[in-house]
């Protein structure tokens, strides 16, 4: 459809404007800012623009271009190697359910697991602000060791840098990880079809809300614990029960809303979610309501979103629920052909709305 020759009735003009917005949305966001702001780190449109304009532009190659959780690299043996990296700057360093140490292991292990890989080895690099207590550093290292052992990975190399007071917020940790993808396993947005079913492995927003409350600036008290956990084992259980699984993602920064948008854009489909099916713990939902934030956009660190073919939805859900990390798993929606690239939420109230990508978000650092 184009505007040429169409009489300019009000409806026609409105249609034109909507088409223009649609075209604008399809375009990757452009970077117009002169300095980096916190919005560029929030995982929404600004982050995508920065990555496109600066990093993709500089490093462009086949393995990087899909911008997945990790890169998939072909080995001469015919296997695929998964390679992922992530930095951790969460404040406070300790929060109910975990620490920056356990998070640094879980985050990277989960990025590998979402590629379908079995995580094997990690590196760990520390940027430490002078004056940081050694005992605290040792405690964070112990958290990492414990998390690595539980996830079945080994920290095999690392680096330590110390910077002046004020140049880092106590400690920043960067981990990278590698793992092998078993032969024949292939996951990707290109495999997603209309009719497929969307599952989540448990309750939403626990991590983001736990960290927000742990910061203590809110004068809110609620019993909320971060969900930080390694997901590789849960992925194996899921793939055994639902070998046709199309796509996996861990909804960390930006939450389930953001990963569903990425899915809708990459697979050129609609994702239709049911608000009444979204599992959210009562105190988490209450805190989100009070703060005016939507649990769909809040970070998780021990959850996965899976798309499975409809005939495998029941076994997939049963397998997830049988695992301790998936006890609250739920079917939260389905994939539809239209409207392309849109995430739609059918509200419990009986209406519907679009769940868009966040433009920026005012939440503090959570991973």
């Amino acid at each position, binding site marked *: 459809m184009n505007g040429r020759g169409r009489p300019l009735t009000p409806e026609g*003009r409105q249609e034109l404007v909507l088409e223009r917005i649609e075209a604008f949305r399809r375009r990757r966001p452009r970077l117009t800012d002169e*300095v980096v702001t916190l919005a560029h780190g929030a995982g929404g449109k600004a982050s995508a623009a920065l990555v496109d304009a600066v990093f993709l532009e500089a490093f462009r190659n086949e393995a990087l271009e899909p911008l997945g959780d990790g890169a998939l690299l072909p080995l001469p043996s015919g296997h695929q190697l998964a390679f992922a990296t992530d930095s951790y700057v969460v404040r406070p360093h300790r929060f109910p359910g975990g620490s920056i140490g356990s998070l640094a292991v879980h985050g990277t292990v989960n990025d590998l697991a979402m590629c379908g890989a079995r995580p094997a080895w990690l590196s760990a690099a520390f940027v430490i602000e002078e004056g940081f207590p050694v005992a605290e550093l040792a405690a964070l290292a112990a958290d990492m060791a414990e998390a690595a052992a539980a996830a079945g990975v080994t920290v095999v190399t690392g680096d330590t840098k110390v910077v002046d007071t004020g140049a880092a917020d106590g400690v920043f940790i960067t981990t990278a990880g590698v793992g092998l993808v078993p032969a024949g396993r292939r996951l990707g947005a290109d495999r997603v079809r209309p009719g497929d079913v969307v599952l989540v492995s448990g309750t939403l927003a626990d991590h983001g809300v736990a960290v927000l409350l742990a910061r203590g600036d809110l*004068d809110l008290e609620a019993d909320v614990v971060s969900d930080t956990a390694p997901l590789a084992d849960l992925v194996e259980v899921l793939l055994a029960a639902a070998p046709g699984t199309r796509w996996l993602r861990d909804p960390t920064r930006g939450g389930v809303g953001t990963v569903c948008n990425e899915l809708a854009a990459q697979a050129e489909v609609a994702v239709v979610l049911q608000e009444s099916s979204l599992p959210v713990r009562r105190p988490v939902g*209450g805190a989100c309501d009070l703060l005016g934030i939507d649990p769909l956009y809040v970070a998780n660190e021990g959850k996965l979103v899976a798309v499975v073919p409809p005939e495998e939805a029941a076994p997939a859900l049963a397998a997830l629920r049988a695992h301790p990390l998936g006890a609250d798993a739920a079917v939260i929606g389905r994939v*539809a052909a239209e409207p392309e690239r849109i995430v739609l939420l059918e509200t419990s*109230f009986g*209406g519907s709305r679009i769940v868009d990508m966040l433009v920026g978000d005012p939440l503090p650092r959570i991973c």
Partner: protein
Amino acid sequence: MRFVDEYRDPAAARVAVRRITELAEAGRDGVPYAFMEVCGGHTHTIYRHGIEQLLPETVELVHGPGCPVCVIPMGRVDDAIALAEQPGVVFTSFGDMMRVPGSAGSLLEAKARGADVRMVYSPLDALRIAEASPDRQVVFFAVGFETTAPSTAVTLLRAQETGVRNFSVFSNHVTIVPPLKAILESPDLRLDGFLGPGHVSTVIGNRPYEFVARRYGKPLVTAGFEPLDILQSIVMLLEQYAQGRCEVQNQYTRVVRDEGNPIALAMLQRVFRLRPHFEWRGLGFIAQSALALSEEFADWDAERRFELPGIRVADPKACQCGEVLKGAIKPWECKVFGTACTPETPIGTCMVSSEGACAAYYTFGRLHRTAAGLAAASS
């Protein structure tokens, strides 16, 4: 959620929607009613729960000026940034003010350039920062209607009581009645009634709106913030039309009293004074529509403590936010909508916050045609 579910019951919603459809169709041979929800919180509820998709085409909601972030003019944002960039200043702000563009960038960008800008959830947090860092000047960027003004007042009273001198308030508090009047005075007005602001009314009560019905002949129903509150308020407006009444009514009786909250009002009276004029983004200067600190609190007034540029920055010419706010045009009828003005690069007030009429339409507008049909087909 406990105490909330009963206001989000889909079965009750269906009953209300049926009633709205009957009333709206019987009334004016299908000529649509246009009701303005004054408050940004209502706009948020309407989008969050998909209420527009439930309403018949004979009822149209127009998003009003009640988003406190949207109405702050560029010049005031520039002043805020100038304050934040003064040496020794810790500038504190609510999170959603940080993205609002001034003439040369936002507070978020000032922060990226090195200004000490911190997000707080309440003015009391800002006062606590001041108490904890006596060698710094802590300024709070106060925005909002009569809803948030009392918490600023409480904070100032506490600062006075405890003698905290390194704390000051940059007041941008505004009042709801003058912009309502400005909208009602406009010659191109195209509204049939109002959903009155629930939170503001908990403070000022329901009486200040009497003029809307009496002088301008438009009904007003003060509405709560749950989705059923909105639907019930629309029913009440339509019933007034059906019965030939034109009144100010209160749907939000569980919270709002006619006389408001006398303690909060007395506090506002003491801590603030009315400004002769204040500029509203999109609406221009409105007399006696904003609050500055009173003489008693002059020592805590950032506008007196610091030198401010105070330069008025005109709203961009192409921007038609004023007309959108009055319901005279739809967001998509504005010349720059969706081209020069988008949520990433907002020009006008209505595109700035997600509660603004244009931002909401930009994000959700397409839903009306395609997705509403899809959702209907699937249920």
